[in-house]
């Protein structure tokens, strides 16, 4: 039985397979409409989420399966003090696959240790979010036609941004990747991500606080939101939340084929005026999220 807790559990070859499967689903949706007939996905969301939960539910419904679950900890037995292990032991008796989001880092791994069915990490605190990374990878592949020899800029909250950590780890496995890290001092990429993803794979990277100076180099610009829920201190959040706001004038020296990605939700870090720019890919990214999750659910359930 396979789980997906960390994107690095998937080999580059498996990611290629998932991307190919998702692309086939996009082109032939009817062929997949009954692949998961009779199967149940449990969505255990101990932390609110709109996009990820609905994306998982939409993916399973599009495959002919059904969905049950909860969307906040208050409406689950966690509110009564039940452990993650016990919740999952129970839910895995009612479902064929589980997608879990939890504010505590490592909770989906604990779930996987006790589950009778595959567990997918749908985000654990500021730690990992592998299905967002798969979504990002499908977007990159469909926009650029490849994963190698790309210069990828990450901008905003690189400290708590779990999607950033996962995507950097995934992209570090491809030849010729260059990484550009743009953030305020307080939200720099944690040293362990630098050590274990970038340095270990000899990935060339630069760190800067100035987005405009590096803009012309980028093939991909991955914007992130400074997340209020990651701060213990409201003052720090308010001080840093508007550090980088992408506006059309900041894109004047960008490459014509730049792809702008964002895991969403956006607050104000990308001006609405940028949405009309053909380089803005973040709403396409949302669409891809559903298809890659369909491909992943099928893979973990062993359905071809």
């Amino acid at each position, binding site marked *: 039985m396979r789980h997906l807790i960390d994107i690095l559990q998937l080999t580059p070859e498996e990611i290629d397979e998932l991307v190919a499967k998702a692309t086939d689903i996009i082109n032939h949706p009817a062929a997949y409409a009954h692949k998961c007939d009779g199967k149940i996905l449990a969505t255990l969301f101990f932390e609110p989420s709109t996009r990820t939960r609905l994306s998982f539910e939409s993916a399973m419904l599009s495959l002919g399966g059904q969905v049950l679950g909860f969307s906040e900890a208050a409406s689950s037995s966690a509110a009564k003090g039940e*452990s993650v292990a016990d919740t999952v032991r129970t839910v895995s008796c009612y479902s064929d696959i589980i997608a879990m989001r939890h504010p*505590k*880092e*490592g*909770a989906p*791994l604990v779930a996987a240790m006790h589950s009778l069915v595959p567990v997918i990490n749908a985000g*654990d605190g500021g*730690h990992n979010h592998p299905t967002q990374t798969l979504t990002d990878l499908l977007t990159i592949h469909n926009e650029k036609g490849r994963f190698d020899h790309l210069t990828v800029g990450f901008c905003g909250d690189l400290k708590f941004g779990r999607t950033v950590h996962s995507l950097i780890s995934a992209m570090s496995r491809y030849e010729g990747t260059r990484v550009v890290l743009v953030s305020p001092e307080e939200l720099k990429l944690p040293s*362990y991500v630098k050590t274990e993803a970038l340095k270990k794979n000899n990935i060339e990277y630069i760190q800067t606080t100035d987005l405009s100076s590096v803009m012309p180099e980028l093939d991909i610009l991955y914007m992130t939101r400074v997340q209020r829920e990651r701060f213990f201190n409201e003052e720090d959040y308010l001080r840093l939340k508007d550090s980088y706001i992408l506006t059309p004038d900041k894109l004047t020296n960008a490459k014509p084929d730049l792809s702008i990605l964002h895991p969403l939700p956006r607050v104000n870090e990308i001006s609405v005026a940028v949405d009309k720019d053909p380089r803005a890919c973040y709403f396409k990214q949302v669409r891809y999220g559903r298809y890659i999750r369909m491909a992943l659910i099928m893979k973990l359930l062993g359905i071809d």
Partner: protein
Amino acid sequence: MVIDAIRNGIVIDHIAAGKAMELYQILGLGKLDCTVAILKNVPSRKLGRKDIIKVDSNLDLDWDIIGYVDPNITVNIIVDGVRVEKRQLKLPERLTNVIRCKNPRCISSVEQELPQVFKLTDRENRVYRCLYCEAKAENR
């Protein structure tokens, strides 16, 4: 200063000077009924000064903990007054319930009876990370 040679037991040697009490506490040697001798600041050709612990019983010790405290420690097993085994320790790949994760966002801070597990991710720099949240253990 003379400490009796032990006939059946364990000599934990080459402990960095000043670390013997920490090891004594971590291994729970205070709970034993047998004779336990702690020698501090013993002259050593290799280390300059070292600590030694002698335990007058052939216990099954947690080698991983000893290796984590100091991989340069050697452990001698004595049977009938003769050293029958000399173990060179190394940093263990995993540590279970030896150190605690300090990350308040880690599931191990709230989940009932979850073992505290750390894995060795960088042997050269002695880096251990929490199995669950990957937070780095504080250096000893």
